[in-house]
């Protein structure tokens, strides 16, 4: 449900001219709900940015997400694997 909630909020932010990228833990959900930009991460629920107390690993996920914002070739809906 969390995955759907952030997808729906992301869509509303985009309608307000805010560019978004949503981390997604379930490809099943991302493919159905279709947020504008989604980064599918291979982590279990509760660990969306990889590992606690690991800033480098968290930054790596965040950076991959930010790069989606900067990619001029992406088209909606964009789903990328981490």
């Amino acid at each position, binding site marked *: 449900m969390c995955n759907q909630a952030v997808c729906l909020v992301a869509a509303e932010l985009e309608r307000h001219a805010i560019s978004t990228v949503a981390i997604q833990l379930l490809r099943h959900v991302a493919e159905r709900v279709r947020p504008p930009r989604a980064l599918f991460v291979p982590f279990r629920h*509760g660990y969306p940015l990889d590992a606690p107390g690991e800033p480098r690993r968290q930054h790596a996920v965040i950076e991959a997400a930010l790069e989606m914002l900067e990619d001029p070739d992406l088209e909606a809906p964009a789903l990328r694997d981490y």
Partner: protein
Amino acid sequence: MGELAEFPFGWRVFLRTYPWRRVDPVPWTPLSKPLSECRLALVSSAGFVLPDQPRFDESIRGGDPSFREIPSDVEVSELVETHRSALFDHGGLARDPNLALPVERARELLECGRIGSLGRVHLSFMGSITAPGRLTRQTAPEAAARLARDGVDVALLVPV
């Protein structure tokens, strides 16, 4: 990894048959300037609140679609995780709230110039919302308007 197989059988059936809402058409806002000039806000669905904020209301059928404003200069130790789901391990969030609301990572992005500024607030939802009608009609538009008023250009959204 984040797969339906993580969940007990009954939940797997529910998640496979649940009528997922479909965003259609998919809105698209391209970056209008370099990320290094953009204002960033975070949106988490981990149900974080501050000690003086009301908890999310677990009695609301279909889930509480409200959100809390979390100042972007918050001390991470102040964040209280209140997500109601028993379907995931909360241990990581208890050890490090940055895992789902990366407030310290965001400040580091600002310090190194990767982003231009931080919004005054980040937003916290409690994402266990099975009936998202009020979310889509009311609270998500309110959240978007809040961030837009703050001049936010980009948002990173993190579920749990």
